[in-house]
């Protein structure tokens, strides 16, 4: 399975902190995972995960651009630009 985490405003607006996706041939990259999530028709998934939204991603706790490869067992996280400090 691919574990997917959401943080901060994205987590709050989705109403979910975590979902899982079954690995599939069409889920090769971070961009693919995001597109799969944006294809969900329940709730605000399409809006909040659309490519128009400025979101960052990490794969296994390392920042990951959209083309980063994803495989079974990975943890993918999506979140808004960071605002610490």
């Amino acid at each position, binding site marked *: 399975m691919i574990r997917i985490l959401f943080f901060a405003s994205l987590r709050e607006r989705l109403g979910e902190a975590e979902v899982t996706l079954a690995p599939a041939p069409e889920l090769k990259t971070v961009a693919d995972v995001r597109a799969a999530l944006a294809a969900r028709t329940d709730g605000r998934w399409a809006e909040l995960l659309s490519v128009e939204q400025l979101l960052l991603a990490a794969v296994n706790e390392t920042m990951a651009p959209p083309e980063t490869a994803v495989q079974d067992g990975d943890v993918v996280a999506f*979140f808004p630009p960071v605002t610490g400090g």
Partner: protein
Amino acid sequence: MTMADTISSDLNSPDGPFWHRIQTAPIDCGAAQQWLSADIVGAAGATVLFTGQVRSEQGQVSALSLEHYPGMSEKVLAGLIREVAQRWPLLRALAWHRVGDMGAGDAIVVVGVAAAHRQAAFEACSCLMDRVKTEVPLWKKVSGPDGSDWVDARDADLAAARRWHDSGEADER
């Protein structure tokens, strides 16, 4: 997986030259300064300590809540310290970041370095802080009389962090 409410494990330690920490407990800035200055060989001539505190913004901010990505935030913080210490000759460096709930005036973050000379200390501390602001997975939510909302990332912070990329480090990676 919402707000982290545990003090993260310390793989690093006060005994080594680098010390990062994500913590829910209040930050003790005096202790940070003391640790930086305690260089037993006497080779550190300069320390620079930065603290970031919750601003009340004329009463518009009464409380601040900080969410992080447990595990990743510690990893990124540790990596930033290592990178900064590769660019400037540092004897000690620390970065402690608080998460969870805090109020106006509370310290959110303390970043400090010790070096032989002051120019390196100022530059390294400033760079480390700019990168903490833009690279560690942390998110602020502020509460005031009009309710609460997530803080937007500032272009000025991204520009500040880019300064350091333009002048070396990132180019070499």
